[in-house]
């Protein structure tokens, strides 16, 4: 250190608290904070359009709301339902929307004009599942009348009525490998695989619990069914062998989705396929599909009823029983997708800036610009460049420590809100024998942040050794003034509670240690 230089406060560094972060965790953390929308009723279905720009349909109460994925705002609302609507889903090219409903009618809408194009009547009770086949002309639907029906959409005619389920049919999916193979799940705990060419059930699998959701793996060989608080993964090609049972939720799993990005152009391992499940316990969990271990979990404020992932894996929409819809978008991707849209919009409005060539202004001597000229230019190659003698940038607490203003320095650190900085400042003050003077002589307003900090961190294992002593000193200093400022009294009470909780924890840990010690001793003696 050269004489005259001020040494910045060395802020203590601690090892990261959590275990090493996985790539998966990083990927899901890159999804920004959610955009929350309140709907009238529970959000029962979320379906992303398979075609770009991946708009999505949200079914809630008597409406199907079409969301713009870029703006994350409702674009159209289809309200042509007499009763509660279910299962609003897009046709594979995204041009039409089909929805079931409490009335038992399967309806086809034009998302642009919101007009009802087709109505297919046949179900005697509510239809909870309706979906287009990949050939874009057929629709499969399942309802509470325990039947699965197969429709010809252009002709508005029922082709098949598949019977076999003995309870409500609640979900279904078409095999990505073969557009004629459909899987449906029912509350009779079974999952049936239908071949519409034969018009009959070819496979029946027992899940063990009422099935709430189904999803095919992209290969079409594996099928995952959700019911109760577990997922079952079935190997269809092996004749319906149960491959794995995954149980990570506390309550019924209501939705399951497979995120299978097609274009591997995104950062952070977005190309890997993932399995997501949402449950009534309010969690959405992400599984690695190799070993079905949870790689990421996130919590939502209400029981999760539905979830959807955009086909490019950049938008995650979660619907809840309270009618709340949460939309999260990956940060980098949003900018990438939003930019062309915006530019196009401006172009249409005629506001696109002209590619005007800026003429170089002739500088007038005597103007301010004239004196600033040439400062932004780079030095030519080979020129001797002298670095500018800049004063080092100092944090607020450093500046105050340099001026020996100890109390202000502590206040600045407290204001910054980083506990390691506060603790480092306190230790530096101890080394200067200035901590007591920095703590003393505060009024209620100045004491407030210090007490709040102590309440939060005094029993934290990293800082407790120093902060407990500081808390003692603060109590010694300010105990006589108790009862004068209500805010201070509240904080003191909070501090007391925190310490009590910690003491109880320590006692239970001691008890546990006492229990373990004989066991460990016995194991050691047995080992030797």
């Amino acid at each position, binding site marked *: 250190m050269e*004489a*005259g230089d001020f040494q910045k406060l060395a802020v203590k560094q601690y090892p990261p608290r959590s275990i090493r972060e996985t790539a998966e965790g990083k990927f899901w953390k890159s999804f920004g904070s959610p955009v929350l929308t309140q709907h009238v009723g529970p959000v029962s279905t979320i379906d992303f359009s398979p075609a770009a720009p991946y708009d999505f349909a949200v079914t809630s109460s008597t409406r199907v709301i079409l969301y713009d994925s870029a703006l994350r705002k409702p674009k159209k609302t289809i309200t042509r339902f007499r009763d509660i609507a279910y299962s609003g889903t897009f046709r594979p090219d995204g041009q039409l929307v089909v929805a079931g409903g409490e009335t038992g009618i399967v309806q086809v809408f034009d998302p642009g004009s919101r007009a009802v194009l087709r109505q297919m009547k046949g179900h005697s009770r509510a239809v909870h599942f309706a979906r287009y086949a990949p050939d874009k002309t057929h629709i499969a639907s399942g309802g509470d009348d325990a039947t699965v029906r197969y429709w010809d959409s252009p002709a508005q005619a029922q082709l098949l009525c598949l019977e076999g389920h003995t309870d409500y049919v609640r979900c279904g999916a078409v095999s990505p490998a073969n557009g004629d193979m459909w899987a449906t799940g029912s509350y009779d705990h079974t999952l049936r695989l239908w071949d519409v060419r034969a018009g009959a059930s070819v496979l029946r699998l027992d899940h063990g619990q009422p099935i709430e959701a189904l999803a095919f793996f992209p290969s079409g060989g594996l099928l995952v069914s959700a019911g109760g608080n577990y997922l079952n993964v079935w190997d269809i090609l092996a004749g319906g062998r149960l491959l794995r049972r995954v149980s990570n939720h506390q309550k019924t799993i209501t939705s399951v989705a497979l995120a299978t990005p097609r274009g591997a152009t995104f950062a952070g391992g977005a190309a890997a396929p993932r399995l997501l499940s949402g449950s009534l316990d309010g969690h959405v969990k992400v599984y690695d599909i190799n070993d079905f271990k949870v790689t990421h979990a996130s919590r939502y404020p209400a029981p999760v009823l539905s979830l959807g992932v955009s086909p490019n894996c950049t938008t995650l929409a979660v619907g809840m029983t309270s009618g709340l819809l949460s939309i999260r978008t990956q940060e980098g991707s949003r900018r990438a997708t939003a930019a062309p849209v915006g530019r196009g919009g401006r172009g249409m409005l005629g506001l696109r800036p002209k590619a005007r060539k800026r003429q170089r202004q002739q500088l007038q001597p005597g103007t301010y610009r004239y004196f600033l000229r040439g400062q932004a230019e780079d030095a030519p190659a080979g020129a001797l460049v002298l670095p500018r003698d800049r004063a080092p940038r100092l944090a607020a607490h450093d500046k105050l420590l340099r001026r020996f203003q100890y109390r202000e320095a502590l206040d600045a650190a407290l204001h910054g809100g980083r506990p390691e900085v506060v603790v480092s400042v306190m230790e*530096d003050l101890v080394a200067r*024998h*200035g901590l*007591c003077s920095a703590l003393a002589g505060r009024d209620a307003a100045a004491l407030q942040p210090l007490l709040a900090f102590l309440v939060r961190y005094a029993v934290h294992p990293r800082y407790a050794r*120093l902060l407990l002593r*500081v808390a003692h000193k603060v109590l010694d200093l300010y105990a006589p003034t108790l009862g004068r400022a209500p805010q201070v009294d509240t904080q003191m009470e909070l501090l007391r509670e925190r310490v009590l909780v910690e003491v109880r924890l320590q006692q239970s840990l001691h008890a546990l240690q006492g229990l373990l010690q004989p066991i460990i001793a016995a194991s050691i003696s047995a080992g030797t």
Partner: protein
Amino acid sequence: MAMATGGGRLVSHPPVPSPDGKRCLICSGTTIRVHSVATGEQLLILQGHSAAVTAIVIEGFKLGGNLVEGGQGAGELSQAWSASLDGTIRQWDYVRGSMLRTVTVGYPIKSMVVPGLGDRRGLAAYGRNAYLSVWWKHGQEPPQARGPSVKLQKKPKVKKKGKKTGAPESKDDSNREGMGDGSHISVPEHRDAEGNPVEPEDGKPVVSGSDGRRSGRVLQFDLAKGEIVLPFLARTNEPHHLVDSLRGGLVGTYDQHTVLVWRTADNKEVRLHHTKPIRNIAFHPSETMVAAGDASGRILAWYDVGALRDASDQDQAASTSAPDKALHRRILREGRAGFEGRTSGQLIGSPRAGGAGNTRFGKGGVRLGDDASALSTWHWHANAVGALVFSEDGAYVLSGGEEAVLVLWQVETGVKQFLPRMGAPIRYIAGMPDPTLFAVSCQDNAIRFVNTASMKVVQTIQGIKPAPATPKKTPFVSFSPIVEPAEGRLVLPSPNATLQVYDVFRDRQAAELQVAPRNFTAPPKQGQELPAVVVSHATFSADASVLVTIDAMEPEENIGSGLCLKFWEKEASTSGYRLNTRVDEPHTAAVTSLVFHPSARMAVTTSLDGDFKVWVPGPNSSARSAAEPSVSWRCRSVGSYRSEPLRCAAFTWDGSLLAVGAGETLTLWNTVSGGLMCALPPGLSPDQSIIRVESAHGSHFLVLTARGKGARPMLVAWNLLTMSVWWAYHLQVKELAMDPRSSRFAVLILDPEERPKAAPVGRKKAGGKGRPRERAGYVVAFEAHSPTPLVAWRLQKAGGASLVFLPPAPGSGKSRDSQLLIATRDRELRQPRVRLDTKQSMGSCRQQNSPHKVEKPQRAWACGPGASSSVDRRTCYLRSQESCQHLWRRCCSKDKIFDRSLFPDCFGRVFVITGYFLEPSSRAQQTFF
């Protein structure tokens, strides 16, 4: 005999620049060191004085940027005069490094100025008249003008044996280097056993006179003629620094509350008085203006000093002509009004005038009776003003003090500029020929050259820093100096939690490492110490790639004490050390030792909490970026022995065993498996506990020191093969150093003859209360396998000294042996001149193999040159073949135990070492290697 090899204080006296500004002359003990200002490198050492050099005056001056020689010939261009406590003034050629002549004054000189020696007109006007501030003993005959006592050197050579003219001295004085001649006035010479002159810390020479009362005198001395011109200018309580003005018009000093000023033309004295003790004074280069710093931190500036008396003199001279008198009074009055107009500082007179009733203070705040027109006061320093100097043009005053802040005052306006954080309290400031450059002597033994235009330190001459203060309330003390094994550099703890890496062979600082990065902060009150952070332990790995330190912080009101264990890895690019791992609170109680494995990467800490921990490197699981090291240190295992507090640990030299001292028991642990091998009491009483254990290199011996309440301290050598005590002494070992290249070791023991109550002879100190008294001691070297001491030296100042074995100097191809180095408390490095000879040690090894068959003891140990002659006064080679034979006989005959053996010490007294010797136990050859 030990001689100083390095270190030494550079900042006891102000540095003096050469007129061309290229060199800087520094008083360092008895020598003058010539350094280059541009590089900071040492160019020359001028040796010759026999006591501390206190002042240097340089002949030659600068005019208009060109150097003009001060005298007739060009040879005088590089001449300097130095004054010393040995009572002589010597003239040197500081470029060629030769001593030109010696002038004897006869009194210990504290300070010297030669007004006008830096100015051609001055030299012409005043000649080489020196003003000296000397120690004067009561009852001594008053100094008189004497005849010439100048002796020209026959050969202008530094290393010249002096001619003996004084009282007969013992023979070995003849090999003292550069002893000057002509000491026909009996100047009390004080030397310690090493032949080095004693210089007390405060510069007071040791007095052994009749009543011992001493005071200071200021006298005038003609250097050219070598005679005292004016024997008595003033008497002071003790001699202080003399200051002269740049053009040579004024000379001054201070005494308690008074400033004394003489005009060099007629030696007329002016006294200025103040209410606080004065600490230093400075003169304006061209005007009759005097500035003084006091103990409360105020800077006072008197204007027109001596003008009143001039006026009255002229009045008397011109009393016949009344109009002249009136005219003169008018001039004086107007001049004084002019001064009042420009004194813009806070006038001290105005607030006080009311209280004092205008009786003590005259106009402008000057005391009545003081001969000055006005007084202004500047106050910024919180503590005493440490240094004060005017700039060359007189426009600025520079001051410094305890706060380690260099303050630049504008004389006209009192506006301040600061250069804070100079690193340590400022002791002296000296102007350089370059008007923007100043040399600042700081307390941390550094001379920093400050450019006042850019307010930056441009160059630093760094000596060995002083030892850090020990905090009173905590058990943490700094570690003893250690040696960096790779390059053989000395690593010393220094203040502000810094390690100083010092190259002993080149006598300069090699590097610096701040263990706990903190800014220097001055203590809040004067005299209060702020120890802050102490590096209590430090150790290197065998290849010096890893440095391990423990730093401890003194708590403030029980808040925030903390130990911190740090692992530093050597960086290949910069060869500095970079922090790798920090472990907060490695133990719950104080850490007592820190050792590193001799070959593997493994460190062990022991603590009073009863645990020892083994630290090894492992993959860094918490690295968040590629910039962080991929390897971090972690605790591999924790061991304890019956929850005894552990005070020491050592690896055996091959690294297979770890010895840990647990109370009075020595426990041995397998370093690989971590299992306890055995626990054996090394013959200690239960009250004692082992406080230090070391392993002798290349042998199967452990050396322990132990002490305890109610038990006598012990030094024990323990044989690992026989698992028994090999030999032991009852010795209070202060320091223990192991030779890393042989099985030798050295211990420092305090002189048991000196009782704390008995005041040392002639060491009466006024105001010396509380200062740690210097105790004498002995440094004794042993071979681990033999109780016979190899050699011993007496050390005058043993308190706080430490021992270190240095590897041989890189250039010296012939010797492979380590050199023993003694670092005194004042951080002076001394090296015993006698080498421990390997061959002779081997002889004693044979002797050890068959202790029962010793018929005629061989010349077992090194005696060194001259030891066969009569008893050396200063060096005590435990010259006791007889007594060792005696010792051997006794331990062989009387049931293997002896209790008292006699060692003659250096002063012919009897120095009793009590010890005992145990037979090697029968269950020998228990192999652990």
